[in-house]
């Protein structure tokens, strides 16, 4: 079981939290502020003895999220592979896919709009990611239930994963298990205030069952025949 906490940036987590995800309200920390931001995140992780998933920041013209261990070690940095089109002239796309092994399971940091790209999610989950942590910025005028459905909800249900989504408007945790009732898939509903902590089982049999069913149902023999369409 993982005690996962969602907090505002640098807000103390609730007692017992093992992993913290920052829920930020700004689109990203600019490149010139990033070194100081990361240092502050490292100190936070050490102070509270938690794994920490940072908010979004820019480094070497890539939009990033970092994963920091309780000892303050930067375990890894995932760079966005897709961009909000408003960032296209300023930022670059990465072709990296990094997964991090933790005592709780393998996790994937899904940077900003990567949550809307099934190719990224398929690639991460088929490589063993059980927990997808999605941190994104959605303009208030664009935000709605559909932005969660097409993003975090889709990620949980299409791949059989546990998905944490934090954005400047809301946050939620979704369990990708088979059920016709959408409410049952929200382990943490959208309107929850911060800080919050939830115990989640990344090996929940219901989630594993759906994941297994979906993976076994994939038809790579067919998909390969249509590589030209899939890789566009």
């Amino acid at each position, binding site marked *: 079981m993982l005690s996962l906490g969602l907090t505002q940036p640098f807000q103390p987590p609730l007692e017992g939290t093992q992993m913290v995800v920052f829920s930020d309200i700004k689109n990203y920390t600019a490149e010139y502020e990033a070194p100081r931001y990361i240092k502050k995140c490292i100190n936070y992780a050490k102070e509270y003895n938690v794994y920490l998933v940072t908010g979004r920041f820019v480094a070497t013209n890539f939009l990033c999220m970092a994963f920091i261990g309780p000892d303050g070690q930067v375990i890894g940095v995932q760079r966005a592979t897709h961009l909000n*089109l*408003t960032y296209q002239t300023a930022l670059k796309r990465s*072709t990296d896919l990094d997964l991090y092994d933790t005592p709780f399971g393998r996790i994937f940091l899904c940077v900003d709009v990567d949550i809307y790209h099934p190719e990224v999610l398929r690639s991460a989950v088929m490589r063993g990611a059980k927990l997808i942590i999605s941190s994104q910025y959605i303009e208030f005028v664009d935000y709605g239930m559909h*932005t969660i459905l097409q993003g975090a909800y889709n990620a949980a*249900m299409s791949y059989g994963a546990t998905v944490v989504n934090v954005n400047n408007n809301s946050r939620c945790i979704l369990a990708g298990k088979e059920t016709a009732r959408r409410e049952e898939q929200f382990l943490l509903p959208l309107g929850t205030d911060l800080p919050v902590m939830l115990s989640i089982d990344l090996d929940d049999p219901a989630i594993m069952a759906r994941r297994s069913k*979906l993976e076994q149902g994939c*038809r790579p023999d067919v*998909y390969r025949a249509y590589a*030209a369409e899939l890789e566009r």
Partner: protein
Amino acid sequence: MAKNDFSLGFLQYLMTSKISISKISKSMDRLHIDPCKNLEFVSPNNVKVAVCPLEIQNYSSIGDYLSQLEQLVRAAAGGGAQLICFPEYSGVLPAFALPSFEKTALKLAELIRAGDSGLKEEFRSMADNLIAPVLDAFLYSMEQLSGRFAIPIMAGSALVMEDDKIYNRFYFFSSSGEIVSTYDKIHLSSVEKMLGIEPGKKLEAFDCELGRAAMLAGNDLQYFEPVKILSRQGTSLLCTGWAKPAGETDLSMIRAAEGNLFILKSHLLGGSRIGTDFNGVSSVLAPFPITREKDGVMARVTEEEGAPPFALVRLDLEKQGEVFNIYTYDTNTEFYKEYLLSSYEK
């Protein structure tokens, strides 16, 4: 075994006599169908489509089955429909015109539930005797309905035997009653696998009288891959039929958004008498920004009093090209080439 073969052989004899082409043709003549004029003017910014759910039920005769379909098509045509979609396994329904078929289906359902090792053999025995006459009745009925009403129909699917293999095959008929395209279901359900049904291998968009279309089964929508492939082939209208067991997740709304296309989804319903429980809301779905409530729904079948038993809606296919979402529009071909197809080997 011998008794079983005899029973099924007798059933086939009954089928042949009860649902012959001449019988269906006579029933059709009695229905006095005139061609509608709905396709005289087709404009991509003003296309009218209908999705018609079907409930599993016993029919006292093949005429009853035809009557059920005819009423739906007539009502949808009367509302201006230029394309009508029926659900998955609508092609099995003619078999319910036989009084003893329900018993056969119930027995099969029991074997499925028990995970009986004799299931495949039992199903194969039934299939060998029944698939051909039921398929003939289904295809002829749909050919006549589409041709006589002069409306394209996505007929749903039927079991088809080809080269000693059984497929779950979808059919699309033109307004002249010709088969324009077929699709063999690619992502089979666990029950279909247990029965030994053969999965398909092809994904092909095709041109129909309303534009570029394609077909999938509902279970295919659990995966983004077929939708993306068909979207890249230019599909605007994705016709889907589904025999969805109760409790199964429906991701069709999300696929419409992800694939940037319209999904016409028709459900097979009911079946409690034969130990199944199919449900779902037949709907026409579109990318979220196109829909009024941003909920992805253009129209759906409702159970309100007085509501028609189908959903009928006007679509502007040109809006598909106008959807520009700054959050989802980006692509990364290099990433896809490096990671996607190799993912399936992990």
